[in-house]
């Protein structure tokens, strides 16, 4: 069981992380990620990240930095202009992994208004698993796994921060 204060801190983090992603504030979002970050969207239900099966996205910290660098060029056509997004977060469950480290499950529905080609609304429901850690009084993430309900596809372009 986590305390009310811990729950508030965790939820505050989730909301902030979601807002920075929604608003495509790439570098501010990246600053929430620790050096051991694992950012992952599996392609199949029940997939293990190390089983040799392909993922939709499988970034260590270095590759995540590359991803953010690409978005920050301003000529990543898939996100020019950036999608307009809004994620609704619910069903937050928190477990303590170690002192000041948390495993957090949530359900997320992301509404994406795609405006790069045709104007369309896309909906991305997902179960999301974060691993968070308190460091120097600030909450950071060292893992974000996004288990898309439709990961087995077909999947439309997904070049924003999910």
């Amino acid at each position, binding site marked *: 069981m986590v305390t009310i204060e811990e729950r508030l801190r965790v939820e505050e983090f989730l909301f902030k992380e979601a807002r920075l992603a929604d608003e495509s504030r790439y570098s501010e979002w990246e600053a929430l990620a620790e050096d051991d970050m694992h950012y992952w969207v599996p392609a199949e239900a029940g997939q293990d990240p190390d089983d040799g099966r392909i*993922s939709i*996205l499988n970034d260590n910290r270095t590759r995540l930095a590359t991803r953010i660098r690409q978005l920050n060029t301003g000529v990543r056509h*898939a996100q020019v202009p950036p999608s307009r997004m809004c994620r609704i977060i619910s069903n937050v469950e928190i477990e303590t992994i170690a002192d000041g480290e948390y495993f957090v499950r949530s359900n997320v529905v992301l509404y994406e208004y795609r405006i790069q080609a045709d104007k369309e609304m896309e909906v991305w429901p997902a179960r999301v698993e974060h691993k968070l850690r308190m460091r120097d009084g600030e909450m950071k993430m060292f893992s974000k796994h996004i288990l898309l309900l439709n990961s087995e596809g077909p999947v439309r372009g997904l070049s924003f921060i999910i």
Partner: protein
Amino acid sequence: MLDNSRPSEGIRFEELILDDRVHSTLYTDSEVFEAEMDSIFRNGWVFICHDSEIPKAGDFVRRNVGRDPVFAVRGRDGEISVIVNRCAHRGNIICQEERGNAKAFVCQYHGWAYDTKGGLVDVPYPAGFKGDFSCHGLERLAKVDSYQGFVFASFNPTVPSLGDHLGRATELIDRAVEMSPVGRINLSGGWVRHQLNCNWKMLPENDTDGYHVNFVHPSFAQAIRSNYDEAVLQDEESLKSEAKDWGNGHTELNFSPSYSRPLEWFGCAEDRYPSYSKALREAYGQEKGDKILLDGPPHAVIFPNLFLGEMNIVRFEPVAPGVGLHIHTPMYLEGVDDDVNQRILRQSEGALGPTAFLLADDSVIAERTQLALAGKGGWLDLSRGAEREVTDDNGVVVGHLTDETSNRGFWRHYKQVMQGPDQSSPTAAAAAA
């Protein structure tokens, strides 16, 4: 049974496809799409799967041939059948799982059971069944053949041989599998199904378009140093890579002339994977081993639906005139250390699919093109470089990387296929070249 009332009869392909341009209705018109499903996807050869996906008896994978649902299954005799996924009783899906292993396929509607060849073996409440088991099997695709483990099939019992269809392009497939010291690839990595809201033909066309890279992928070039800096991102005079038309609609971007170091195509130095280079030289001899290490894998489309995308294998799937799927898997190599295959996997995730550094941008550009072609449409120009392409000793047409040699090759073959067997022959492309 093949439908002989060809829907393409009313469409005048000779007026829509000229040597140097094509009309946009080819990407938008639903009658054209229906005609393609018949002439290309039912009458011709279509890539189904690689035999490494179904290594054991009873192993199966589901696929679509055009829009027809099928599954490929390995029988007890080791032979692969490609079977229409539709119960012979009243049409239910027979094979429900995407992949797996089965001794028999039992329909979940009324329980008819079929063996791995599609033969009917059991019917519940048999007293009421007055038919003949041998006449109630599942529909099998008339022709199944393979090359280097790549399994192709056709509904057409009189389709010319797979060898005729592949023609010289067997060399491209050879180059892909020879990236392995034992000459075997393994497609066990699973597939990512990326949907693009554009016509399926834009996928093979763009995958062998060497002209767009500077404009569609500047963010990639700025953010990532890669082998593509040398292969595709130079100015016009310095570019050594080539666009090629291998005949029969098979096309290639040949990056090899741009590479000057072994494993440059893999984005690393040779000493990164010493046992890999050693194994290749031991397997193929010093000279050929050196060449493989220098040239790297092919970047080529096998008409109509297979892309040998360097260290990836891609299937194209048409869904509707304005919807296509680009479905990819890492091309794992047999006989190499795990770290080589790990790198292949990570590069595959980086290059292809919905979140990729490259394909996400291609997909937005393709979707914008599809939008621009709505309504009455107009002509698309494919003339670039026609005057400076040359035909090499093997009959392959070779152009500058940025020239539309590959696109013209695709459309020349497409036109023959769509106009029907009377006006096309497998060797016509060679004669024209």
